[in-house]
């Protein structure tokens, strides 16, 4: 598989390994990310994985982009390497759906002609893949949402979305780790801490993790430790 490699200025190579939101493409990105972490190529500062691409950031005074590009192409032999290292098990994330925790749940249900309960069952009845972490520290972009919940973004983004908000947009679902602006439809909230810079592993989730949402009541959330 030959990647498409584009320059991002004099410090980045954007390695594209396919198109679209596709688990097979995303697994290749994850593999190349892991390979580059192992190879520790001279002059590479960091790599940023996304849906279908890996941004390789380099120090232009240490690495020449032409040579780096050749090295990266030489490492893109995914069939020989097998599957990326998988995390153990599915991460379960409890969510209070609807009410003040999920102000858009009723709108989402109405948009699809479903009941609130249908939306909760559909959203919590799927195991999602974490395609990438981005936007803010620890924000997981997960998919793929059931077709029946495919919902456009809000026309006017909110300026202040509460920490822990669980949201959907098109065929994706995500969780806002800190208060931030955002345009996704908010259907619930989790008391789970998604990002803590004081921990050895600051982000609860990483690319390739599998996630399932578990409905909980507001009373249970109030009892949540921490």
């Amino acid at each position: 598989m030959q990647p498409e490699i584009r320059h991002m200025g004099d410090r980045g190579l954007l390695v594209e390994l396919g198109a679209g939101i596709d688990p097979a493409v995303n697994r290749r990105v994850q593999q190349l990310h892991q390979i580059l972490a192992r190879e520790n190529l001279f002059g590479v500062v960091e790599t940023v994985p996304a849906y279908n691409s890996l941004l390789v950031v380099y120090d232009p005074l240490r690495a020449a982009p032409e040579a780096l590009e050749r090295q990266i192409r030489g490492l893109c032999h995914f069939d020989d390497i097998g599957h990326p290292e998988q995390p153990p098990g599915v991460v379960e994330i409890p969510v209070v759906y609807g009410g003040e925790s999920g102000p858009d749940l009723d709108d989402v249900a109405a948009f699809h002609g479903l009941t609130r309960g249908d939306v909760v069952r559909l959203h919590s009845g799927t195991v999602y893949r974490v395609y990438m972490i981005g936007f803010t520290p620890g924000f997981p972009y997960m998919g793929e949402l059931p077709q029946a919940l495919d919902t456009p973004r809000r026309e006017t983004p909110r300026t202040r979305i509460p920490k822990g908000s669980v949201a959907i947009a098109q065929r994706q679902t995500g969780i806002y780790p800190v208060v931030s602006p955002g345009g996704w439809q908010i259907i619930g909230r989790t008391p789970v801490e998604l990002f803590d810079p004081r921990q050895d592993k600051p982000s609860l989730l990483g690319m390739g993790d599998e996630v399932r949402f578990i409905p909980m009541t507001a009373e249970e959330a109030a009892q949540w430790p921490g």
Partner: protein
Amino acid sequence: MARIDVLELLSPGILASLQDTGRLGFGRIGVAPSGAADSYACRVGNLLAGNLENAASIEITLMGFQARFRSEAAFVLTGADLQATLNGQPLHLWTVWRAAPGDVLDLPAPASGCRAYLAVGGGFHCPAVMGSRATNIGSGFGGYEGRALQAGDILQGHDPQDYLHRDGRSLPDTLKAVPTSDGVLRVLPGPQEDQFPVASREQFYETTYTVSGSSDRTGVRLEGPPIAKAPGAPDSILSEGILCGAIQVPGDGKPIILMNETVTGGYRKIAVVIAADLPLLGQVAPGDTVRFRKTVLAEARKLLQGVEAAVDWVRGHFAG
């Protein structure tokens, strides 16, 4: 190292925060580099003061900053000229000064540039979080309690009395980066340049843009004729990793130069500012005009070598 109170904030002005050379290596979990927008000014200020170049400095934005020294200290201001005074006496930039307890430092209003850097000899005390002292204001960690500085904050320093002898040291004029209000930023083609019609690309390089008042540490927003995308192309692309200096064109066609607080983005990048010009990007202020000139990788590399040679010279010349 003994820690003592060195500076009391009287007014932060528009925005003041502790920053260093940034937090690298955590893009995979969505953590942006943060750090000084003008890394050259931040690094050189610390070296003049006798610190390591990645010590924490206060990044001061545009106007209204005031602070009182609580101890004797050597200090340096670099970057933007915000018409700084100590007890009303004008201060040269890129020069080590000596303050006494009770002295009041004022940075009232910009003469040129956008961000000034205040370094003190011995450095401001600030625990590193994920390997850096830079403030990530959006997620609330690093720097001073994870937030922008406020009136009443008291910053501690490490043994500032040991650095007082550096008073009077000054940078040669040729190494002072002078921010202009009519900047030309040198760029390389962006990863999606080929997705813009030829006329749109030509327009991008011919336009003199005005920097919008809604620009901040996240991005420099530009006002000018909107850039048309290819007919039928969707507004956005799949999110991908981005770098400081990437120039994205959202649906309204008005370019935004992304800065150090963003790690992924979902718009097409028409061009990317070269590494050597990022310090200048950090000095672009609302109301300034900006033009873009296309360069090539070889020239970008030579220009960056020049920047690093200047920092090397400062490191060697002002050591000890």
